[in-house]
């Protein structure tokens, strides 16, 4: 019996140019699902619905020398906008030491999910609430008192406040998974330990290309791998989050965040979990009894199990909560934004190594707003090279 001299068609590697010094990789994803119906559960700070989008991304790596590289990623979302999601230089100063410095529009140091930039790296279509869900806080407009903030509960996709910008606009997530910050970052990597620090213009919730907040954010992450397959990480960040254009007298204008993340994989299964605690200093003109702070807490856990070489199943449970404040017109303290729960179940099918079809069912519940429950059915195709 003759051997068939054809294999499945697959690119064996990224596209190479300039004698291999320039490498290009890319990803195209098309996502379609049931309409949001005005609930905006899955809207991003780019005012797009993550469950109904088309994205093409090309990543280029030019490595003129062994210890010097330039990286850039260009994204086209919904065939409308072209953004430079990443553009930075990477240097390894010492040949024998696993120490790297990156400068420019750099990947986030905080947490673990933010660096899963490609759809193919994620088992589900929807994003964790901490990285996507828009709270009502805005960097260019501030509430004068607790009532202004409570009035915007559950309206993060388009909030408005009396201090600062007079226009309505989208609020901030705890951490933005869609924009990367600009600054300098250093990393030390060993087989069991990874330590990274970064100084950037924006904050984890509002990454910036230019500095509009008169201060730098410092962020760091420490991750250990005690045994193969288990990664435990801890992150912290602090930086000014309020735009200079907002007239505030207070000097307290920082976003402070702490996070913990864990990943364990073995055999055909994988579990990831992450917790984020974020506090924004809010310079209320008339502060509530709880003080000039708004705190948010998020936690999620997701799992993936491969039931055959081509098929996997996955699920995520996700929760986002907020600290309580007391308004002048309210008798009892209320969370300053509407708490949200999200559950997502899905399955993926690998048509070939670099072409994946997925489907998910996402259930959302928001306590304390008019549009409080929605279930979304979504399908996605992801192709990468």
């Amino acid at each position: 019996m003759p051997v068939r001299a054809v294999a499945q068609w697959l690119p064996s590697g990224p596209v190479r140019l300039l004698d291999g010094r320039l490498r290009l990789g890319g990803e195209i994803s098309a996502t379609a699902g049931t309409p949001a119906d005005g609930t905006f559960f899955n809207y991003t700070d780019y005012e797009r619905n993550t469950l109904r989008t088309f994205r093409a991304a090309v990543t280029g790596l030019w490595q003129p020398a062994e210890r010097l590289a330039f990286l850039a990623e260009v994204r086209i979302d919904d065939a409308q906008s072209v953004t430079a999601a990443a553009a930075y230089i990477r240097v390894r100063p010492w040949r024998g030491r696993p120490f790297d410095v990156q400068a420019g529009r750099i990947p986030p140091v905080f947490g673990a999910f933010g660096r899963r930039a490609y759809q193919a790296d994620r088992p589900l279509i929807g994003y964790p609430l901490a990285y996507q869900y828009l709270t009502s806080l805005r960097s260019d407009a501030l509430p004068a008192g607790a009532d202004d903030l409570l009035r915007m509960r559950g309206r993060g996709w388009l909030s408005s406040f009396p201090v600062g910008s007079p226009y309505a606009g989208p609020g901030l997530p705890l951490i933005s998974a869609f924009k990367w910050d600009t600054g300098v970052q250093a990393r030390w990597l060993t087989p069991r330990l990874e330590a990274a620090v970064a100084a950037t213009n924006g904050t984890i919730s509002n990454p910036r290309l230019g500095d509009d907040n008169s201060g730098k954010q410092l962020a760091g992450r420490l991750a250990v791998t005690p045994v193969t397959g288990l990664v435990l990480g801890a992150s912290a960040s602090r930086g000014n989050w309020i735009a200079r254009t907002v007239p505030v007298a207070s000097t307290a204008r920082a976003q402070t965040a702490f996070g913990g993340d864990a990943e364990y994989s073995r055999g055909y299964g994988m579990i990831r979990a992450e917790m984020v605690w974020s506090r924004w200093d809010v310079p209320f003109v008339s502060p509530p009894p709880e003080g000039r702070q708004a705190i948010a807490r998020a936690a999620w856990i997701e799992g993936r199990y491969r039931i055959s070489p081509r098929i996997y199943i996955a699920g995520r449970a996700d929760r986002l909560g907020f600290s309580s404040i007391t308004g002048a017109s309210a008798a009892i303290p209320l969370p300053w934004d509407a708490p949200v729960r999200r559950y997502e179940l899905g399955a993926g099918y690998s048509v070939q190594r670099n072409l994946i079809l997925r489907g998910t069912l996402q259930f959302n519940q928001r306590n304390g707003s008019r549009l409080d429950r929605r279930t979304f059915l979504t399908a996605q195709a992801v192709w990468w090279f």
Partner: protein
Amino acid sequence: MALSPRVRELTLRVRGLTPRVPAAQLVVTFWLLCFLCVPSVFSSVLSSVLSSVAVATATIRGRVELRQPPRDLEPRPSAADLGMPAAHGATDRRRSVVYLDPAPRAAFDLRDEPRARMDQRNETFVPHVLAIVAGTTVDFPNNDRTYHNVFSLSRARTFDLGRYAAGRSKSVRFDKPGIVRVFCEIHSHMSAYILVFSHRYFAVTDDEGRYRIDNVPAGTYTVVAWNGAMPTESKQITVGDGGEAALNFVLERR
């Protein structure tokens, strides 16, 4: 003349009788064996002799030259890394496989269940190309400090070994002829080929591109040179009794 496996097995069985067996039983057993097996031994020996007379074998050897050396496999560029990716070993993509297509009729008489090995070392599959006969079990030991997840979605063999750590090994049996592309789910630059043949008339080239296929029955064949990074090339050749034929290939990207 070498004994056929069946004769050898019978000889060993006879030699295996020990002096502790009673003489009468030994005699009975001997005559029983003679009665039952001599005809088959005779026919086996005769068949072996006849086949060696009728099907004289030859050798096909030569060299596969790659005009453009294949480049090493590199990871997919990722802007999300916090620094330089970990160094990985170079993949030896120079090796090609040369095989007869179609194979001689006598080629399908395979009785053993061979094993082969494909290491995962320095984030590389070693060897990059493995040629085996159908029925071979391939071990995939992980010799790295990180997880690997070997899988294939090829039609000839679809499998997924899951994630397993250093020092552990998992195996897959390949029963269906064809080309199996092997990948690691975690490391995008790790890939390899397993060519599964229904016969044993194939060879993997050495460092210099040389190959040698022995025991080819006299006849006319199509010889195919295959390399994962280049288009396949095939040539016709006629080999005579006991001879040695040279056949060289030049593979280049079109």
